[in-house]
């Protein structure tokens, strides 16, 4: 059968850093094709090279057997490639009909838009997917799932041959996902191909025919979904041997347990939404507890719940000092919790403020002196942490945006260490910092724990979890599923636990 899309040996670098090194992707007409990989594997770069957002540096791309290079997303759309982004490119304030027919409105003899025909066509479009809604209503009045389906309807009405869906289910509930899946099956029945990007592996087994696995900018495997399983896909994504994973996983699951202090944090069956359904864990003084899991397993959501950012739908949290679930970050901070967030740029630093000001922001309530800020103590604290953490800078008064990533991260760590917390939550503390700074940051964390602090560590780098954590809570699809002792834990044992599917015990 002729390929609809064929991408081979695609290369793409950004400012000299390769994002794609040897990526390929082949899609045949009428198949649902999954594209998976860890964060940074190059999935979205590859898609953007296809849809004309990026221009590839090298490699061949063909569409229906002919050489293809889209100059713009519009160009790709005209060639029959429609992309449904997570943030939908629709107009919520206009009617469903307008959103579907926009740019291709039916005209009457006078050259004016024939609205009755437009509504009829929009209604027909949607009924093909089994959706019956009032197409005259504003799009924004309908739930996210319907909006997504309208986006798909629009794509199909523009004669798309390939529909790309980027994490289409991340904002949908279970019933809405079923509707989406039936639409995807309808598309397949009509001979339209779907490229499906998702980190929910279970979904792939429900609707996909084949899957392309990417790692570090390369395509590492293409599999028939019927001939593989979750463990196999995870092994591909992580670049491990599946036998190694399942074998070592069996032995290391029960090991000796280390000495620990008093319990300072406990979560019992905490749920905040679809991404965090049931998490239970405890953290004790003087230990680092790792949260292991794949992207989307609920690690960050667990941290957000503990820090009072998401309200609980179920379950309970006991904070240091015995308090219940915090209602705001201020509550959590008052209870002795610090949170170094994952997205340093958006949630951590205040870019135009000086290093000194950034470092003491969380400490301000305690620096108050005669109505003002006790600048002498502030300087002492800032000097102390700059020295103690080896923060490299020209002056404590230079804007923090001028510092390197590693030094920015140290300032953020210092910000929380200065509040003398009982518990520090670290979400990807060493992402985007160089190797030297990484070691230093890990040493800082170790020192903090040796002084009686406790750490909840979230990291996508299994090595960091294995080396750092005294215990690891394994999370899958919003649930904490098992607990591993840190001592004697190996990377492959951790990966096995992450990949372990409760109802199909690895052989």
């Amino acid at each position: 059968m002729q390929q609809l899309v064929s991408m081979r040996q695609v290369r793409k670098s950004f400012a000299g850093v390769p994002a794609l090194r040897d990526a390929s992707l082949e899609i045949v007409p009428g198949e649902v094709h999954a594209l998976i990989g860890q964060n940074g594997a190059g999935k979205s770069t590859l898609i953007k090279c296809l849809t004309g957002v990026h221009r590839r540096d090298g490699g061949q791309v063909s569409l229906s057997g002919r050489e293809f290079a889209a100059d713009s997303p519009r160009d790709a759309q005209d060639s029959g490639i429609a992309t449904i982004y997570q943030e939908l490119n629709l107009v919520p304030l206009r009617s469903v009909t307008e959103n579907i027919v926009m740019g291709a409105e039916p005209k009457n003899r006078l050259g004016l838009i024939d609205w009755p025909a437009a509504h009829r066509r929009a209604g027909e479009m949607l009924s093909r997917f089994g959706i019956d809604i009032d197409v005259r209503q504003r799009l924004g009045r309908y739930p996210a799932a319907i909006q997504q389906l309208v986006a798909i309807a629009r794509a199909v009405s523009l004669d798309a041959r390939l529909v790309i869906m980027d994490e289409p289910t991340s904002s949908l509930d279970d019933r809405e996902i079923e509707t989406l899946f039936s639409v995807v099956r309808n598309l397949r029945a009509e001979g339209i191909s779907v490229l499906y990007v998702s980190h929910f592996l279970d979904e792939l087994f429900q609707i996909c025919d084949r899957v392309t696995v990417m790692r570090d900018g390369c395509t590492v495997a293409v599999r028939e979904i019927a001939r593989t399983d979750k463990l196999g896909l995870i092994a591909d994504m992580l670049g491990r041997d599946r036998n190694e994973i399942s074998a070592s996983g069996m032995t290391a699951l029960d090991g000796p347990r280390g000495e620990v202090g008093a319990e300072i944090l406990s979560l019992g069956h905490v749920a905040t939404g679809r991404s965090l359904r049931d998490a239970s864990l405890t953290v004790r003084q003087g230990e680092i507890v790792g949260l292991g899991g794949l992207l989307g397993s609920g690690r960050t959501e667990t941290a957000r719940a503990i820090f009072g950012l998401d309200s609980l739908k179920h379950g309970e949290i006991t904070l240091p000092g015995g308090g219940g679930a915090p209602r705001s970050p201020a509550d959590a901070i008052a209870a002795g919790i610090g949170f170094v967030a994952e997205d340093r740029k958006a949630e951590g630093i205040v870019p135009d403020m000086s290093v000194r000001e950034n470092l003491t922001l969380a400490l301000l309530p305690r620096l108050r002196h005669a109505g003002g800020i006790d600048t002498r103590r502030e300087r002492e604290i800032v000097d102390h942490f700059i020295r103690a953490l080896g923060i490299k800078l020209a002056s404590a008064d230079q804007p923090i945006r001028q510092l390197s990533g590693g030094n920015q991260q140290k300032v953020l760590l210092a910000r929380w260490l200065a509040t003398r917390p009982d518990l520090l939550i670290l979400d990807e503390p060493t992402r985007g910092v160089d190797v030297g700074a990484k070691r230093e940051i890990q040493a800082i964390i170790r020192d903090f724990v040796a002084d009686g602090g406790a750490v909840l560590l979230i990291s996508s780098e299994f090595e960091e979890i294995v080396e750092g954590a005294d215990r690891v809570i394994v999370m899958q699809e919003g649930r904490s599923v098992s607990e591993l002792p840190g001592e004697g834990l190996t990377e492959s044992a951790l990966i096995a636990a992450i990949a372990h599917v409760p109802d199909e015990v690895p052989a």
Partner: protein
Amino acid sequence: MANTDMFDLRGMVGRHAQMSGVWVALAAMIIFGLLRYENFGSAYNLGSFLNYNSMFIIISLGMCFVIMTGGIDLSVGYVAAFTSIVAAYLSPWGIVPALIGGVAAGVAFGAVNAILIVPMRLPPFIATLSTMLAAKGGALVISGKQTVAVDWESSFTKLGMEKAFGPIPWTIVLVAIAAVVLWIILERTALGRTVLAIGGSEEASGLMGLKVTRAKVFVYLLSGGCAGLAGVFLASGFGAGQPLEGTGWELTAIASVVVGGTLLTGGLGSIPATVGGALLLGLVFNLLNFENGRGTISLSAYWQMVIRGGVLFAVILLQARMNKSADRAN
């Protein structure tokens, strides 16, 4: 940090280096004025210049805090018109009740803004546009569409018409005190730092447990209070509450703040540079008046506005250049 004595000095220079464009421009214009016009440096000109511009400086200071949080306050001009009438009505009881009453009326408008923006989450532009219209209407209602004469017998007009010492009017003394207090709040208190942090990244500020709500409420109350004080100056200096004044004051204040190097997106700003910005904009008019007085050219008020727009543009351009070279030096 080898030299802790240098710490603060470098801190000040560090934050204000990017705003020095306004000082360069101000110095250039003053030197130009002194060399070209005989009476430019006279005590009379200095006194009347400062007295007239005290209104714009004070609303610019309030505006500066609002803009540093990433917000905007469009209501200041008509709030000042409203409070000038309140002060005029209260003037028979003397200066203190009129002053307090005028400022309190301004704070009340600020409170409405704060309620609309913080708990009700309206965009600041829309919220303050509504209070702007309400203040304008309110000013016409309570004044009966007439200017409201102040009581000339009471002490009230001393504020706007007499000098504190030398050529320095009382209004500018109050403005100077307010500027120093606000400068200290901005640079030396948790509240000031929270204001800057919110403008820099409201999300990060919330995650750090900063009192975001309190700081946002504060800036709108402050801006309302400053507008209230400007209204008191207006009534006192012109001898009447003026329901039709205040048009375009918000834009003058925003321009002063921007010329002072404060980012409209928030997160960066300076009190001295805002004062400098307001002085700069006032000085353009002052110089043009002198130029007209020489008789060589005659510019209408409309042309003066065009020229002021040009100067504003030139200063901002100058600042962008200085910022770029400062960033390169780092």
